[in-house]
């Protein structure tokens, strides 16, 4: 591939680093200020990947500082493989999300699969056992062969990896909008459970300690992956070679079990552990040295290699999957080798922690890099970005919002149930093993997934949410809504929201309008996080999500985890019993901008959002949770896409019940998407206690649960009946039908 390496002089004159994503300004700064000499080929490559947005967050860092990242429960905030939160009894929950948008757009199966593989490694590198996976997927409209192919392959890739690993994929979300056609979003989240005493960090310290490499051999996979993720991409050319990363979940399963044995049983051998993700050996090794302020010397000849004649540059930058880097206390190298051998894996010493703070790489008896560790990790030139309010937002601010007019409410509801973003995703979720490890109390298809914690009364609830449409219309309000929506999903399951992880998916940040979107939405998310006391403990930024110069909707994905203190108070999202009373918690306003109804009727997303009062919403949610903890609530479902009408129908699906509803809302308002509302059912005998507990003028009694499969709604200006059996059929068949149809 790379025949002969350029000399430092040639690099200076031919500027290959521009293609690798390093700017001329950065290169000059490295030569003049940091090294005071010209970097060689390998060194230049190291700077290019380590200074990429993917590894250094040089553009997004100033914005990320807006997030609260600590509270009384946070044991580990951002900066390690994943964040850790105390859940009592000496236990902790560990989680993080990761985007794999660009790799999935090019090679959807392997892109999605390796995305899942990467996030799982982040979790077990903290010493935690992964217990669940979730995803957040955004595709174009299901009307093109290419989109169907992307959907099928991405879903197969996620399932293929998680199923083989034996980690249940328990939840997620999936939306469809034109803007994602050329650039789908594939975000994966993993949740782990651990004993606090087993906590690990990615550090390489203690002079003389060994740096050990474990897992798959290194090939030329994904070289330039990290820099590639930071530059607008074009179709991969047809060649006889391929740098696409291929996942091997079988290898990762062995690696996971071996690493967990090491972290949980032999902590005394281990100084630090980190997975090799983006920018592979380069980023994992220098981050481990940087965090410990150590020096490192690696002999690259010892790195297990799959292909012959790999250069130092290739070995360092390879993104081969299923590899981990360990720092092992001197003297325990052989014990570690034996432990891994027992799993059929190779563990190899590739270097040592050394005095000083240099990053020294040797290959074939040559020194191929000799630079200060911090120059790669800390001296990155942070970039100041320009911001500008997008024209579309300035223009809409002056306009009146669209107000719908519906003639046949029942028919509109039937049509809404068939909108892909609303319709059942069972066709996809049933290709995921959602039950393995037998802890899944609530699997895919509910507001949040719920997993019991064996040996305790506790459970964990988890969800992923993001609504690019709202963020597109108003990033700040949309950002608040994304966090509130995730929290509402957890509350509806009976869980206290603990903390969140995120994937920030945006277009090209060099565009001042896009940077403004990023900044504003983070401000909105941060405000909601503060109100809910849910810090951001980990996350990921994915920029340059564009195709042919068109950016996606700004789409921050929120992955949130909540604690169910006693599983017996967790409630389902569907109705339970005839005679139970139905309440709506939260008032309904005219919120049609960015709604599913607007998209269905006008084909557009347009208008101004009403601001949300995060403090009020948070207090409402806590009251509802407290009513649940007193056993006063039989079911709860949060209102989201499609508003009340859709939520009512959904709460009956899969049951033998129906609903008899009377409301003062008008037909259109049944579809309004005012955030922070719930439909709740309560046993008649609990009514008084429930209302006392909620103490909110925003609670409205709207009807009762019946035992016929019919949804009857009398609204302000009319009435309709919906045959729920038929409606459920339409809702279930909509996506299979679209996926099958020829276009």
């Amino acid at each position, binding site marked *: 591939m790379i025949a002969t390496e350029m000399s430092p002089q040639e690099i200076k004159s031919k500027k290959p680093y521009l293609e690798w994503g390093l700017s001329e300004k950065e290169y000059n700064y490295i030569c003049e200020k940091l090294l005071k000499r010209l970097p060689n080929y390998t060194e230049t490559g190291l700077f290019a990947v380590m200074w990429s947005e993917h590894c250094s967050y040089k553009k997004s860092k100033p914005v990320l500082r807006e997030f609260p990242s600590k509270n009384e429960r946070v044991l580990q905030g951002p900066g390690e493989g994943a964040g850790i939160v105390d859940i009592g009894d000496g236990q902790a929950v560990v989680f993080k999300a990761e985007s794999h948008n660009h790799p999935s757009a090019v090679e959807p199966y392997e892109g999605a699969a390796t995305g899942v593989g990467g996030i799982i490694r982040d979790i077990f590198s903290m010493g935690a056992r992964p217990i669940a996976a979730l995803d957040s997927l955004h595709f174009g409209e299901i009307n093109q062969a290419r989109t169907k192919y992307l959907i099928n392959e991405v879903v197969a890739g996620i399932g293929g990896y998680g199923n083989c690993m*034996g980690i249940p994929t328990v939840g997620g979300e999936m939306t469809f909008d034109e803007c994602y056609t050329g650039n789908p979003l594939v975000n994966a989240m993993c949740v782990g459970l651990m004993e606090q005493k087993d906590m690990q960090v990615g550090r390489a310290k203690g002079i003389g300690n060994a740096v050990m490499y474990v897992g798959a051999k290194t090939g030329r996979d994904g070289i330039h992956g990290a820099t590639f993720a930071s530059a607008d991409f074009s179709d991969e050319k047809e060649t006889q070679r391929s740098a696409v990363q291929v996942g091997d*979940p*079988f290898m990762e*399963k062995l690696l996971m079990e071996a690493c967990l044995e090491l972290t949980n049983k032999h902590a005394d051998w281990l100084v630090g552990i980190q997975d090799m993700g983006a920018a592979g050996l380069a980023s994992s090794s220098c981050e481990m040295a940087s965090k410990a302020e150590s020096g490192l010397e690696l002999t690259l000849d010892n790195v297990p290699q799959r292909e012959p004649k790999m250069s130092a540059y290739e070995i360092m930058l390879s993104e081969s999957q299923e590899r981990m880097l360990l720092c092992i206390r001197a003297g325990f190298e052989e014990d570690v080798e034996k432990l891994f051998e027992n799993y059929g894996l190779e563990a190899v010493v590739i270097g040592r922690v050394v005095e000083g703070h240099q990053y020294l790489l040797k290959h074939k008896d040559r020194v191929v890099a000799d630079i200060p560790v911090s120059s790669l990790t800390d001296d990155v030139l942070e970039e100041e970005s320009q911001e500008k309010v997008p024209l579309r937002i300035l223009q809409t601010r002056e306009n009146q919002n669209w107000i719908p007019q519906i003639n046949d409410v029942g028919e509109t509801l039937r049509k809404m149930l068939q909108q892909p973003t609303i319709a059942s995703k069972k066709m996809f979720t049933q290709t995921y093993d959602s039950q393995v490890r037998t802890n899944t109390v609530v699997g895919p298809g509910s507001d949040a997934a719920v997993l019991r914690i064996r040996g305790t009364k506790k459970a964990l609830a988890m969800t992923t949410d993001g609504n690019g449409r709202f963020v597109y219309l108003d990033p700040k309000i949309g950002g608040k809504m994304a966090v509130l929506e995730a929290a509402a999903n957890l509350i509806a399951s009976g869980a206290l929201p603990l903390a969140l992880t995120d994937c920030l998916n945006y277009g090209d940040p060099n565009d001042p309008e896009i940077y403004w979107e990023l900044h504003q939405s983070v401000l909105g998310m941060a405000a909601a996080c503060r109100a809910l006391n849910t810090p951001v403990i980990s996350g990921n930024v994915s920029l340059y999500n564009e195709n042919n110069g068109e950016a996606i909707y700004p789409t921050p994905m929120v992955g949130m985890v909540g604690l169910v203190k006693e599983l017996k108070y967790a409630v389902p999202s569907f109705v339970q019993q005839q005679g139970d009373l139905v309440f709506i918690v939260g008032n309904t306003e005219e919120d049609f901008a960015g709604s599913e109804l607007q998209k269905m009727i006008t084909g557009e997303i347009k208008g101004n959002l009403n601001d949300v009062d995060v403090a009020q919403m948070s207090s409402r949610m806590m009251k509802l949770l407290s009513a649940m903890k007193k056993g006063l609530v039989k079911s709860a479902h949060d209102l989201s896409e499609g508003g009340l009408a859709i939520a009512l129908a959904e709460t009956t699906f899969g049951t033998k019940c129906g609903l008899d509803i009377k409301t003062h809302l008008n037909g259109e308002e049944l579809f309004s998407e005012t955030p922070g509302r719930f439909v709740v059912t309560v046993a008649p005998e609990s009514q008084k206690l429930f209302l006392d507990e909620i103490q909110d003028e925003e609670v409205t009694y709207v009807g009762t649960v019946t035992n016929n499969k019919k949804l009857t709604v009398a609204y302000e200006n009319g009435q309709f009946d919906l045959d729920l059996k038929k409606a459920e059929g339409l809702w279930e068949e909509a996506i299979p039908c679209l996926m099958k149809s020829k276009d």
Partner: protein
Amino acid sequence: MKIAVVVFPGSNCDVDLYEALHTVCRADVEYVSHKQKSLAGFDAVMLPGGFSYGDYLRSGAIARFSNIMPAIIEFANEGKLVFGTCNGFQILTEAGLLPGALKQNNSLKFICKTVELEVVNNQTPFTSLYEANEHIKLPIAHADGSYYAEKDVLEKLEENGQIVFRYAGENPNGSLNNIAGITNEKGNVLGMMPHPERAVEALLGNEDGLRLFRSLLANGKKTEEAAR
């Protein structure tokens, strides 16, 4: 009665089987590594679901050559109870302890859902606590669960009452004769694609699998007593 749960590289329902037996049924159960060569001291052996050796080549094809396999074959030949679910069933067919083979689902997709089954034969040590022809629900979670055998083999299975479970509603994978689980001729080796170990707790929504383990434990105890 002491039960072995065999762990192959890539097994991932080993914990589920273990918990079903240990925590729910309070049975004496132990994990046994594929590297071991003996099953001495055990009264029954269970092969869990998962992706042994990544399902590479064919599901169960490589696990068949594990160190533990000769011991399992000997164990079966002695008439002791051997149970395999999902990947465990695939391994048992690959090893020749059960006839036929499991091929890719007709849908070409992995499928995880609850299906309806008929207990066709309740006269086995694994199913004695079920009613004859009782309909139960169990989860399935597999990509290669389509049972195939030659015509004469199928006829023999039917005649001998070796078909223990049949899909009673929709056939989820294309299995011939709607076969979901079979025994060997002697009836001491059961392989099935559905996961009874995932259906042993009301908390998780289904207890229909519980009687399979209880049957096995009850019959194991009887045999023990008879031996005394």
